[in-house]
């Protein structure tokens, strides 16, 4: 998993829950983290570290893991807007943007990070206001994906209705049916 996801996560935790919570979260699982909890945006880390950190945060705050991951997804999308404005040029529709993720954005990401293991999205624009988006990944981050979609709606000022149904034969896969209302 790309380092930028980890640095954005620790930043969010610090902003939302305070520096103590962040310190406590890392300290709580530090011995099991290969990186020792020191993240740089240009590095790459095992996705299990993210699972450990989120679980620890849920334990500390008494919140639901899924709720926290989705929250992070929304936060992360806002950060992408700031860090990579070029991806948003000329796009003014939430579903249009989601359709560019696989072809355009992941292509650019691979240029910078050839080793990045990215999820795959299969999009089917059923109607101008309806997008079916399949998330294929070996990692269990469909919830993060939902958070990102919500962040996207927020950015474009769109009201979305998101239906989810797990993909057969894929432990981590998910089919999102996204409708603008």
């Amino acid at each position, binding site marked *: 998993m790309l380092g930028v996801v980890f640095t954005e996560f620790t930043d969010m935790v610090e902003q939302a829950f305070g*520096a*103590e919570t*962040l*310190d406590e979260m*890392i*300290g709580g699982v530090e011995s099991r983290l290969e*990186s*020792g*909890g*020191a*993240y*740089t*945006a*240009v*590095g790459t880390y095992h996705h299990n570290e993210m699972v450990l950190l989120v679980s620890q945060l849920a334990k500390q705050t008494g919140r639901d893991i899924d709720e926290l991951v989705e929250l992070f997804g929304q936060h992360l999308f806002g950060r992408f807007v700031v860090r990579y404005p070029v991806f948003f040029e000329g796009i003014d529709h939430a579903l249009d943007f989601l359709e560019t993720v696989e072809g355009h954005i992941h292509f650019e990401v691979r240029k910078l990070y050839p080793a990045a293991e990215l999820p795959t999205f299969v999009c089917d624009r059923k109607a101008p206001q309806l997008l079916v988006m399949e998330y294929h990944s070996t990692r269990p981050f469909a919830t993060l994906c939902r958070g990102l979609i919500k962040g996207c709606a927020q950015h474009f000022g769109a009201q979305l209705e998101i239906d989810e149904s797990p993909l057969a034969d894929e432990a981590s896969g998910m089919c999102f049916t996204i409708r603008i209302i």
Partner: protein
Amino acid sequence: MADLDAERLARQLNRERRAREDAEQLLEEKARELYTANARLENLLVDLERRVLDRTAELRLALNDAQRASRVKSDFLAMVSHEIRTPMNVVLGMSELLLDSSLDSQQRAMLASIHDSSKALLVVINDLLDLSSIEAGKLGLEYIGFDLRETGSRVLEGLRHRAEREGLDLVSILPEDEDFSFVGDPGRLRQVLVNLVSNAIKYTEKGSVTVKIERLSRDDGISRVRCSVSDTGPGIPLENQATLFEQYARLEQGHQEQIEGSGLGLALCRQLIDLLDGSIGVESVPGEGSTFWFIVPLRDAENTSELDDVVHVTRDADDVEHPSLRILVAEDNPANQVVARMMLEKMGHQVDMADDGNAAVAAARSVAYDVILMDVRMPVMDGLEATRAIRGLEGVASTVPIIALTANAMASDREKCLSAGMTGFAIKPLSRAALERALAEI
């Protein structure tokens, strides 16, 4: 509390430091990778450049070889051209002279057949040489004033006899009122027309051959002219039309197999029309006949003076009686000497012979000839050098008209003759008509 904060900040600082060190290490690794990749690219570039240089050198060598081979081929062609035309000269000349003598009808028929076949052979050789010179890029174009109507009429007149013999009507549709004078290469247009009309006569068993010449457009001093030759022959199936203008393509079905032809005629026509910046094609329906056509752009003659020379010369050639002339023929081949002498004497002229250029200059110095017919290729001194020497003589001897007798029909050879000081040309093999025409020009 402050202690706890301090400890937390120390831990945070420690993590930040480690993250920074990781980032720096990553940066170093990436930089090294980039450097290695760059070095590899640079080596590749150098290698590619070297390979391009090597390949370019190889290609240059190959090009030199090809050019040398092409030059050798051209030289060979010129030599063969000369070698073939010289004996052809004798065959045609002698048979023409014999035809004028008293013969019984069987002998006359046999001789006429020899004469016709020789002329046909000459056409094949000329086509072949023209094609080769076009391919070698050596065929130059003339740029002279001419009346296309007249060119067309002369082609028709030349072939009328043959058409009549085959029982065909030869019909011409030429523009009447318009000014049809152009500047260009009438010889090449004539060659193409003759080819197309001869083919039409050859392949048509009964009916007619119609030649039509028309102006399609006129713009900015350039006319687009269409010449078409329509026949009532067997026609050509669509699948054969495309290959018709390729070398050695010929219909091979039915009785057409028995028709003689080199298969070079139409290929040559297309090459010539290409050279003239025009287009050529055929429309045909099997059973109904064919129309061969070509369209060429021709520059309009701006004033009539551009035409005067050519038109007058060609007219004179036909109908003027020649006075008896004193003529020197410089020619090394004994058989050609006999042909030239007999033809000229039959025309009522007085003939002296010179075996080489040296002898020709000596003769020109001592006798005031009306005209000298000068072979270009001769031993001791060639025709060009002899001509320059004669032009350098004192008095009237230097102004004598000199007509080149040359087996080389190429435009570049004509240029050489003109710049040596010659006044006209007659292409070998000589015919009586060609000699008369050449003499009429002086």
